[in-house]
């Protein structure tokens, strides 16, 4: 959570966006809100607010700071609005395809030729998620996942949410969200798995330490009492064991790790998409798609690990993805790395796979029948 000052632009924007007027006077911000917003904020129609706790009593100004009542209400207001939006993206540059490929590491270079096969509009769905890892502490994250339903691809969108080039498109037909949501949740699970596992392991280790100590303490205490007084009260020993069990339950409550995700909002964006054929120096081909808004390249598979996410680099033995660790010698193949369960394009397994573009013309680069080009 951010500190007070970083809240100011957001708070003012959020109130204004919801229809409030905000003005500054006497070092306080004066807010006039319309009735529906007043109801949401559960306060008066006109009020003063401040980011300085020492000024709170001035004109009964409401404090804006982490944990303050009004900030929570404004957050809730903003989170309740803007939950879906539709937009059209117009590519600002004519050469956006080359730029997008270059951004993916596939700039024109020796050993690679790119050919644009076609251009069409593509619907992208951008899902925003909030994740919470909770035990006796809380760690949260905010994630954007883009889905291209037409090619059955989904990826973490890391490029921010700039509005540049986006225009409202109110006439867009509501898309089928169910399948896209399924793809998005799968990507989110995959990409957060490592941090979730780490969180779980840390908390289970804490739990184990606590449990061990509690058992040690109560069992040893029981043993000492028995040793000191072999004919002693069984009621006392039972009470000790009951107390032990209660403490254990309490400990489990504290360290039980939970991982939750909530869909925050969805955005539909129509953007130009290019179908591109990549020709590699070893005469292999790959047909990929790239859209003008996210500039994300879909359809390429790593020759080393089977990964599908860039940035990409050309190697002697093929194309390598951004997830592959650097290798000391390019000729040494990675050992022991489990291959991805993503079917390679053009293989039998890939046909009918949800992750293979429906109308993809891509073929495996090893397919000799296609080596001389289309």
């Amino acid at each position, binding site marked *: *959570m*951010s*500190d*007070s000052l970083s*809240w100011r632009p*957001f708070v003012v*924007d*959020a109130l204004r966006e919801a229809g409030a007027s905000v003005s500054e006077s006497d070092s306080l911000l004066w807010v006039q809100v319309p009735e529906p917003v007043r109801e949401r904020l559960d306060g008066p129609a006109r009020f003063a607010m401040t980011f300085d*706790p020492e000024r*709170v009593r*001035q*004109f*009964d100004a409401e404090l804006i700071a*982490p*944990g*303050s009542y009004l900030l929570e209400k404004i*957050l809730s207001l*903003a989170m309740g*609005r*803007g*939950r*879906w*939006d539709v937009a059209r993206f117009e590519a600002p540059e004519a050469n956006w395809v080359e730029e997008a490929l270059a951004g993916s590491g596939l700039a024109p270079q020796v050993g690679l030729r790119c050919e644009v096969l076609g251009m069409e509009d593509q619907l992208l769905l951008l899902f*925003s998620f*909030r994740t919470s890892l909770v035990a*006796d*502490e*809380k*760690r*949260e994250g*905010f994630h*954007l996942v883009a889905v291209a339903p037409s090619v059955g691809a989904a990826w973490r969108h890391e490029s921010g*949410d700039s*509005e540049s080039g986006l225009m409202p498109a109110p006439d*867009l037909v509501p*898309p089928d*969200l169910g399948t896209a949501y399924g793809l998005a*949740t799968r990507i*989110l699970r995959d990409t957060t*798995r490592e941090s*979730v*596992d780490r969180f*779980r392991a840390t908390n289970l280790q804490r*739990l184990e330490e606590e*449990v061990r*100590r509690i058992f*040690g303490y*109560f*069992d040893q205490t029981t043993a000492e009492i028995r040793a000191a007084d072999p004919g002693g009260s069984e009621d006392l020993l039972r009470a000790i064991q009951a*107390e032990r069990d*209660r*403490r254990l339950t*309490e400990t*489990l409550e*504290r360290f039980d790790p939970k991982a*939750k*995700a*909530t869909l*925050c909002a*969805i955005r539909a964006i129509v953007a130009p998409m290019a179908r591109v054929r990549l020709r590699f120096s070893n005469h292999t081909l790959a047909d990929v798609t790239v859209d003008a808004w996210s500039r994300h390249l879909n359809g390429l598979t790593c020759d080393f690990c089977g990964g599908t996410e860039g940035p990409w680099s050309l190697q002697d033995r093929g194309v390598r993805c951004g997830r592959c660790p650097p290798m000391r010698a390019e000729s040494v193949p990675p050992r022991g790395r489990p291959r991805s369960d993503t079917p390679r394009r053009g293989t039998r397994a890939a046909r009918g796979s949800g992750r293979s573009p429906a109308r993809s013309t891509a073929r495996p680069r090893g397919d000799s029948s296609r080596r001389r080009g289309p």
Partner: protein
Amino acid sequence: MSLPVREPHPSTDASLSLQFDEADADLLARAFRTPGDGPRAWHLNCEAHRLSLVHGFDRLLAWPSLRGVARYPHQERTCLRVLQEMRGRAILADEVGLGKTIEAGLVLKEYAIRGLVRRALILTPASLTGQWREEMESKFDLPFAVLRSLGDWEDRPYLIASIDLAKRGPHRSAAQSRPWDLVIVDEAHRLKNRLSVNWRFVAGLSKKYMLLLTATPVQNDMEELFNLVSLLKPGALRTYEGFIDRYVGSRDRRVPANVSELRDRLRDVMIRHRRGIAFTLPPRRVHSLPVRLSPAERRLYDDVTDFVRDAYWSASGRMSWAARLTLVVLQREIGSSTFAAAETLRRLAQSPLFGPRERDQLEALERGARAIQQNVKATRLVEFLRSSDEKALVFTQYLRTLQHLQRVLEGEGHRAAVYHGGLSPAAKDGAVRSFEGDRQVFLSTEAGGEGRNLQFARTVVNYDLPWNPLRIEQRIGRVHRLGQEREVHVVNLWAQETVEAYLMELLDRKIHMFELVVGELDLILGNLDERRSFEDMMMEIWALRESEPRRAALQRLGEALVRARTEYDRMQERNEEALRPVSEEVAA
């Protein structure tokens, strides 16, 4: 041996994966059915989520929301250690005056901001419930309620309870049957005995985090330290037998053994800061200004006292609690000023609590009070203020006394900032600002402080003396606190041969209360009598008709106070001896 059954059992999970919210389906169903709120709203939605994310306890978030709380590095360090290393279970054992309450409030606020604490219970001695409520409200904006009825356990997510009340009968089971996210126990040395009802009550609470606050974890011997730690982390100091064998000197149970190892173990559960040279508060200088009442004031005081004593005893057995309380108030008011008592006398003269004869008496007393136009104490106050260039806080318990003083001071050319409970928050702010500006005098009825920093002044005048010494201490604490760099002057105005004279005898001469650090007094009074308040004891003595038994009772109370003070000093030494190795000195 198996773990208690619980669903779902975390250790049986093969892995943990994200669970998606069921409410997602609702959004998927609603989305795009109607026009959205526009791209700006979408963008702000993302921004709201991003800004409000919580990243563990990487830093403290609460500071920007605290009012009137000076930021001290040792408090910040303590809070981070409790959150990051101790996982919310700690003994906060700073020496008196270093801000344990602030540290506890800070930890609570950090948890509350992160949504990890939604139900919190603070257990304190009965005398401190109000003070805790006020501090949590004014400084941390945490809406705590003080336990009044059984229903509060259900209805109040933030509750303050006297431990003596909470541990009894229906309250005990109500408290123990609900899960608490955080339990704070103030004056936790009262949990020193693990066979006591107090200890078993706190141990039986279901809680995620727990803070035990005490400046004196060791009151008699090291076993008490073991008992406190066992509440938080059983086994952290081994078993009882193991602890005694390993960490207690063979003969003297107050002396620790294997200190280095003990220190390491205690560091996991306890934080103790000592006041270093940089954090030693400046001294207090106490000025006693006794006055002799004018003949008319004397006569009225004696007549009111006679009436109170007669009514107190003659009605014994049938007088209601409310009527007795009224008599106490009247006696306190006449000690403050004739103006404060006049209005109460008028009301009592019309009250059905008293018979016709008593009502006639009260009417006569009221006439006597209203006939007095000047109080000697006020004249003495003016003389004192004239002799001093310093800004002064003048405290009285009663609004009518305050109004009288305002008239007197303004008549003498003093400009006073007036502060009382009837003012709006803005007017209170204005009063503080004007005192910080050009006003020499801050006239106040409120001792609580409400988180305001008044350390720019250093003179406190007790125009009257509350019978509850903690209220006096709070007044002084308005200026004698961390941040005060100059010597503090405490001026006590009191009339001879009054209850206030008794108070001065007991509090000033016997235990040198006015020189104690804020917080120490409660520890001393805690050694006195756990069942009756100091106020009750005072009234019982003052109400005695015959002067000899009264003097004797006062003498006994004085001796008990001296013993309590001595016991406190011994306790201080024991803690210093036992815990010095695990303490850190606070640097400025």
